[in-house]
């Protein structure tokens, strides 16, 4: 997309792009000034609803619709939680925004708080982003100085405090209810919904949880308008009445076996092949790609034959992936064993399962133990059926867990077996031609004596 001019990444190459003066010189906080002068909070909700902006954090839920679930006339307080706990493996685009253009995110936070009548916003920031912490805190401090935050913002009857709340390295805090529990000072066990956070969230008050990139998009919708936003991306599928389309710019992360890993911006709907070829400079070492993870580890695998799939909210679904996810693509070349991918994925989810729901806690653990055994040359062909069964049994889609992260644990298993069964079977047949497990004899009496 050589003709497309980046919007979300427009400032990042400027010197001191993270500072207020640089942001303002590029038109920063212009949208906020105009909105506070001309629009009511309800107008802003309506604007975001009309834009069909969908959450960039993974689930793709329409942002305006989420806001509209807040109870009308609630005495408050209402809270905005900024989900900056970007922990999905392969994902790093929020980090780029927070490190290199934090004011764009903060302007979105202020606009969204105005719209939702939140008077306190918490940025839940993962521990592993020390530079983001430093840059975001400095940007918040600058905003208080400049009158963009605090009491009576820009002289209007609107006040907002923003606090950064640092996480402690737990993947589940990126789940909105897990995030809320963690913010309240508890273990991050996702709550059962309903009640949804819009009705009963942080401190049991109405709460909106939005992703960093989503909020940055709000800034640009306010600045450039709904029509501009809807001029980018993929319109709704006329055959699917529930598809709100995939509009707007998107940050795509590209990593793994590619020549130029990085964070790139394109209108939603660029194909995976375009992303790898045009932005990433092709697969590294002159190799072919075997597969990609289309949008963070949870979304599963796309085979090379599926690379022409548009990376919008419906594209990856059509080829059996969990969804667009975070839009962060990890390329795996032809030499990389799918078993290694499967091991890495299952080990991650076994480590990060919060332990609340038995199917996820036990299923992820059993999966990783089986894969360890297969890797050790003691696999059986029927292990693949067992793994498949685990994959089919955990998550909110089969209805066995509280949160959707378990579906994310299941999807890589389902896609690896569904799309690369031959490779996995070959490995098992080659390493364990007899096909049975040799077990070491155990001395029963000795075990009791211990």
């Amino acid at each position, binding site marked *: 997309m050589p003709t497309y001019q980046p919007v979300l990444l427009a400032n990042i190459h400027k010197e001191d792009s993270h500072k207020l003066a640089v942001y303002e010189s590029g038109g920063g906080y212009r949208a906020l000034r105009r909105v506070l002068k001309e629009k009511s909070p309800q107008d802003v909700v309506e604007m975001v609803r009309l834009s069909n902006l969908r959450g960039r954090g993974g689930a793709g839920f329409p942002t305006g619709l989420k806001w509209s679930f807040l109870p009308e006339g609630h005495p408050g*307080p209402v809270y905005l939680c900024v989900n900056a706990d*970007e*922990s*999905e*493996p*392969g*994902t*790093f685009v*929020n*980090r780029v925004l927070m490190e290199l253009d934090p004011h764009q995110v903060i302007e979105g936070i202020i606009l969204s708080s105005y719209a939702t009548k939140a008077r*306190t916003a918490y940025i839940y920031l*993962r*521990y*592993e*982003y*020390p*530079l983001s912490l430093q840059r975001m805190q400095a940007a918040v401090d600058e905003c208080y100085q400049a009158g963009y935050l605090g009491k009576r913002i820009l002289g209007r009857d609107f006040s907002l*405090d923003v*606090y950064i*709340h*640092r*996480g*402690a*390295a*737990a*993947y589940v805090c990126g789940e909105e209810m897990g995030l809320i529990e*963690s*913010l*309240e*000072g*508890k*273990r*991050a066990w996702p709550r059962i919904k309903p009640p949804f956070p819009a009705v009963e969230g*942080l*401190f049991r*008050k109405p709460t909106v949880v939005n992703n960093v990139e989503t909020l940055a998009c709000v800034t640009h919708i306010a600045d450039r308008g709904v029509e501009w936003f809807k001029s980018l991306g993929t319109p709704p599928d006329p055959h699917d009445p529930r598809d709100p389309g995939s509009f707007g710019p998107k940050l795509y*992360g*590209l*990593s*793994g*076996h590619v020549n130029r*890993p*990085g*964070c790139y911006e394109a209108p939603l709907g660029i194909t995976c092949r375009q992303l790898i070829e045009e932005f990433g400079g092709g697969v590294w070492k002159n190799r072919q790609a075997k597969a990609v*993870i289309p949008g963070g*580890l949870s979304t599963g695998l796309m085979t090379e034959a599926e690379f022409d799939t548009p990376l919008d909210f419906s594209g990856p679904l059509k080829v059996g992936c969990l969804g667009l996810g975070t839009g*962060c693509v*990890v390329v*795996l070349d032809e030499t*990389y064993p799918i078993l*290694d*991918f499967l091991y*890495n*994925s299952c080990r*991650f989810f076994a*480590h*990060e399962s*919060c332990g609340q729901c038995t199917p996820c806690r036990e299923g992820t653990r059993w999966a990783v133990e089986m894969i360890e055994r297969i890797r050790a040359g003691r696999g059986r062909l029927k292990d693949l059926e067992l793994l498949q069964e685990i994959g089919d049994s955990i998550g909110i889609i089969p209805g066995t867990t509280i949160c959707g992260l378990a579906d994310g644990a299941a999807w890589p298993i389902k896609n690896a077996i569904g799309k690369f069964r031959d490779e996995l079977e070959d490995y098992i047949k080659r390493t364990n031609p007899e096909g049975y497990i040799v077990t070491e004899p155990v001395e029963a009496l000795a075990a009791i004596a211990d």
Partner: protein
Amino acid sequence: MSTAERLLSDDVRQAIRARFPRYATRQAVTLPALHLVNQRLGYVPPEAVAEIAELLELTPAQVQDTLSFYGFFKQDKPAGRVRVWVCRSISCAARGGEDLLEYLCKKLGIRPGETTPDGRVTLEFAECLGACDYAPAMLVGDTLHKDLTREKIDEFVASLQQ
């Protein structure tokens, strides 16, 4: 409890109290308090848990429950002066991150989760540092080490000796 027996110094207590107005409950200050204590002491021992609980008007069990959920905080003994996280998740692993973690383990003579006998370094694995564009990566304190190679790890280990 007299001041002399306290583990948490007055400035740490003050820093914890300064967070109270930001939240609707004192319990919400648990994570910030754990971070402040961990930063100061290198770990959060049971005595500190009791003192945090007292400040936050919680039971020690409530604080311990949260503390033990987050693998980040050390409980038994302080972490080393430098804490190193080597990423082992998919983007880094695909570019050799796991081999580099193993290499660093050998060089330091410890396994992930352990601290060198001289108390200088604690080595950990990380589940995605979110630095996939610089894979393989490791985080040393607040500094990200990008595009790691064995040579860069050699340099890092040499820098520790100085």
